[in-house]
Every structure is written in C-alpha cells, then in structure tokens.
C-alpha cells in the first residue's frame, strides 16, 4: 500500500512540476539558494563528496528537515563565541515506546574537515535508507540519532576564510592578543591536568576554566540533560585512523573497557572490510597521547557507556587536508563502523530485554523443577 502511495505522490509531484506549479515554499527556498549563489540547486544535487562552507551546511540542515519532516527536526543548541547559532538534527521514528539516544558531533576541531563531511553523509544515509533498509529500521525503532554536524562553527569558518590549519575556537583572550580554546580540552573532566596547556598560545589551550567556552557549555548542558537516555556518544575527528575509547586523562580503564574494546574492534573490522583501511583501536592514553578535558572522557564519566572518538583518514600523508576524492570512501567505511557499534548497542539493550523475559521464564521453570525434585 505504502509504495503505491509513494508512487502516486511522486507522479503528482512530477505532473505539478511539469505544469510549472511552484509551491511558494519551494520558490522561497530557491531564492535563498540563489542569493548565496551555491553551486547546487536542491538537496537532490547536494554533493556529499565535497567540502562545504558553513553557510551551505546551515542551508543543508534546513532543507533536510523540510524534506523529511516525519523523522527529522532541527534544534537549537546554543550560540558560539562569535554569536552564531549551533543546531543539531534529531532523527527519530515516531513511536509510542521510549527511545534511547545516540549522540554524534563532528568538527570540534576546525581543520578536521572530513568530520563534518561525515556527519552530513551519515544523516543522508540514514534518511535515504531508513524505510527500505531493515538494519537501519531496526535501529530507529528504539534509538534516536542526534547529530551536530559542526560543533566549532567559528573555527570552521575561520579555516575557510583565513587559516586552513586552525584548530581551536575563536574566543578572545589576554586582551585580544590571543585567540581560541581547544574545545576538546575544555570539558569538565580532570580539566587541564595533563595533555593540555594553560597558555592561550598553545593549540591545546584548555580555556580559562572548565566549560569556559559557550560551545562547550551548549553541548555539556544538553548532554547532561539527556544523559539518562544517551547510550552512545561519538565524537568525530581527523586524522590518524583510530577508534579511541576512554580515557585520555588516566591510564585507568573504564569499568566496561573489555566490552568497549570488543565493540570497537568489531567496528574497525567492519570498516576495514569496506576498502581495506586499517584502524587501530584502544584507549586514548595508550595509543594516542594523554589528554584531559575531552568530551568523550566527560561523556563516559557522566555515565554514557559507549563513548568513542573516531580519528578518520588519513594517517599523515595529507592529514587535515584530505583530498575531496577520498570523502566518499572515507564516509562509506566509517558508516560501516558506526553501524556496527549501533548494532552492538542495540543488541545489548533491546535483544537482552527479550532475553531477559526468557531468563525470568526459565528461572520460574527451573524453580518449579527444583521444587518438584524435593518431593
């Protein structure tokens, strides 16, 4: 029934389009697009294998939520230092049962362009396939996806206008003589204890105090408010080809370390199966370097069990300036890794619910059996 309706709808659109009938909304959208002279004219032609400036990403978010209103809503998270709005997309299949949440943010470091590219790719993949793809449909039955395509908006814009290799935010310090906090050293977890600097000149400057930056505040408060429901926290970076788990600030391991390694390794295998790319899996302090105040460590410590940092391609040849020609392959393989993690998360929380029922039934049965054996 549904496909038939869909076909009729499509036919209707084609006919209307052919008749030159412009819905006022579509016309408005076209005007907006024309004003900013984007090289693409509609969402259908939005090139996911190219890098996009922030203006285009804002537009893309609006278009996405307009095109998929039944599952996508755009939400305001907070303002950046330079007073730009931060928006995230919520992808949620309407249903009566309560949902858990996967959070994913990209571009906390401005120069890591492949990260926002992946966030956009992820959203597109989910939305294009959620109706036909049983794997994604299953995930959306119990999980909502919250995606923040660019966390460090001011920094990202700065890499487009001024300095391609800028990393930090654009907050002003020391009477305007020094700029930028490393937002991934600014979270309230062992703040500035190790692997971070109190000197604004440094690229790992942790800020003036924990959560001193508006971007960090916006993300922290939101995650904090939803922490009971967030089961998976992913933060996307480049480069290095790594899947990192807590912690960076200590060699101690989180309580679910074994599980995190298992899930992480499975994800790396799924990634490698796609295009042969090798990723290493381990805790930040073990395979990368010591860091404090990172979003992933903070997320883990407020109780979010599956917290990972991804460092995407490559392993140093082009580094931050990854060629656009590699966007597609990078996103395809990363998608496999993320879906693998989500599958494992799903099976842990919702497969075991039904298994739980089985367990309690078998428990009752075995109790009955043991009572019988007493006689």
């Amino acid at each position: 029934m549904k496909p038939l309706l869909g076909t009729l709808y499509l036919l209707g659109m084609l006919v209307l389009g052919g008749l030159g009938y412009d819905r006022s909304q579509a016309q408005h959208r076209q005007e907006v697009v024309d004003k900013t002279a984007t090289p693409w004219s509609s969402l259908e032609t939005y090139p996911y294998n190219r890098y996009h400036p922030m203006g285009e990403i804002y537009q893309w978010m609006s278009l996405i939520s307009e095109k998929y209103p039944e599952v996508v809503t755009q939400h305001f998270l907070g303002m950046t230092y330079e007073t730009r709005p931060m928006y995230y997309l919520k992808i949620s299949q309407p249903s009566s049962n309560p949902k858990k949440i996967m959070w994913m943010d990209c571009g906390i470091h401005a120069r890591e362009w492949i990260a926002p590219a992946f966030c956009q790719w992820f959203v597109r993949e989910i939305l294009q396939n959620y109706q036909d793809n049983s794997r994604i449909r299953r995930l959306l039955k119990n999980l909502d996806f919250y995606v923040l395509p660019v966390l460090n908006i001011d920094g990202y814009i700065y890499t487009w206008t001024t300095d391609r290799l800028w990393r930090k935010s654009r907050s002003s310090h020391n009477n305007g003589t020094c700029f930028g906090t490393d937002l991934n050293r600014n979270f309230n977890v062992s703040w500035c204890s190790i692997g971070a600097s109190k000197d604004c000149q440094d690229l790992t400057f942790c800020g003036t105090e924990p959560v001193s930056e508006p971007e960090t505040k916006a993300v922290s408060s939101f995650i904090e408010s939803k922490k009971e429901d967030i089961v998976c926290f992913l933060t996307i970076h480049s480069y290095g080809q790594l899947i990192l788990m807590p912690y960076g600030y200590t060699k101690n391991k989180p309580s679910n370390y074994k599980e995190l390694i298992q899930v992480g390794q499975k994800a790396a295998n799924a990634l490698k199966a796609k295009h042969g790319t090798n990723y290493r899996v381990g805790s930040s302090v073990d395979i990368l370097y010591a860091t404090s105040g990172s979003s992933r460590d903070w997320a883990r410590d407020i109780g979010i069990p599956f917290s990972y940092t991804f460092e995407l391609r490559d392993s140093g040849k082009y580094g931050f300036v990854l060629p656009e020609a590699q966007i597609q392959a990078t996103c395809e393989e990363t998608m496999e890794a993320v879906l693998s993690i989500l599958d494992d998360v799903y099976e842990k929380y919702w497969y075991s619910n039904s298994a739980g029922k089985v367990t309690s039934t078998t428990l009752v049965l075995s109790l009955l059996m043991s009572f019988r054996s007493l006689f």
Partner: protein
Amino acid sequence: AAAPEGPQDSAWQRDSELPHGLLQQAARAALHFFNFRAGSPSALRVLAAVQQGRAWINSKKECQVDLEFTTEHYNPEEGEERLGNCSAQVFFKNEKPRPTINVTCTRFMEKSKRQQEDYLLYKHMKQLKDPLDVISIPDSHGHIDPSLRPIWDLAFLGSSYVMWEKTTQFLHYYMAQLSSVKQWKTDEDAIDFDYTVLLHEFSTQEIISCRIHLVWHPNKPLKVKYHCQGPQAPEEASGIEEGSAAAPTTGLINY
C-alpha cells in the same frame, strides 16, 4: 649493521618497559633520514608497521633503539602493495637535536626504474614555469594538480631532512601543506627550490612553518638548508646538510 647486544657501555640499562610509542618514533626518524639520504623523490618510503625492537636508556635519559620495521611506497602505483624491510639503530640524544641513525632497507624498486622516474620528475620540474602562481599545495580541498605533483614530492624529500632533525622520542611530524612555493632556477642543471612548508607536530598538535631551500639533481647529493619558526623552535632552528645519493649495487641500501 645493528649490534645485537646494544651499547656496550655499562651506563646503559636495558629498557624493558618501552615508553609509549618509542618504537614508532624511532622508525619515523629512521625513515626520514633514509628518505633524505636516498635523495630520490620517486622512491620515498613511509612506515607500514614496526615488527620488533628493543631500547636501552642511560642515566641522562638518552635512548638507543634497535628495531625492525616494514615500509610502503609513499606514492604507490595502482594496486602496488610492495613492502620493504628495514632494520635500524636510532640514538635519541639530549644535546644535539638530531637523532643519530644507522638504517638498512631492502630495495623495493629496481634501481633503473627509480632512476628513470627521478629523471622524468627532474625533466618535468625543469619545464614548469617560474614564478609559479601557486599559493598552497594542496589547496584547501586537498587537490594537487597533477602537473604540480612533482613539487609536492620534492618538497617532501627536502622536508624529510627537517623532520629527521626534529623527531625525538616524543615529537613527530607530518608535512601538512606547502604554504608557498617561491622561485626556483636551474643553475648548473640542478633544481634549486625554495619553499615554505607547514609541518604538523602530532603530540602538541602545533603547526610549525619552515622555509626550506634545496638543491637537487638525480644521482647527486641532495643539499638542504632550512629555517623554522613556531612554538617548537624557541631559537632559530636551522640546518645545512648534504645527503648522498650513492647508487647501491646490492639489494640492501644502508646509510
């Protein structure tokens, strides 16, 4: 060849618990040095994997590493998956910044092929118009025009010298971007290449800017001068070195 016993001086202690990432650091330093000494932009190598290694540490916290590792071609051809094997002795000292290196690698490219590719690159560079109207390579989107590819490779070769000097137990570098390509001329047939490169130091995440001047001719010693600015270089860090492009006749290349 690496002495299996390590340093004979009793001041050295075998470091059984290797500091985090030490073998990788040693491999990187060895490869930068190897690339520099080989002087061949078409036969550049990158680290594939560390096989094994041991380290000795002395009272001054200086560190000697013996290791074996595999390499890949920096510019692999379509489907190329050749691995090279290397063994190296790397000595990270305190005083002079550059690590002392002894490295031997199996050859993975036919000598004649390498010479041919170098010569093609050399001819190509000579034909490029100067001054180049290029701001950065690659551009912000990661594009390198195919005609400019040889510049990137040659720049990487020159940067290898700088990265060799600067790699320590804790610091390692990648070439992030060529931020300006200044003029070159070809005096006495050599390529005389003056450029600025942005190096990314991984553990501090810093970007340092280095002005490099190299003189290159296939099969002649590579000459490099450089001057870096940035947080890693509190004083002016510069160096001058001449490499050697001795044509090895055996299957092993040793520097």
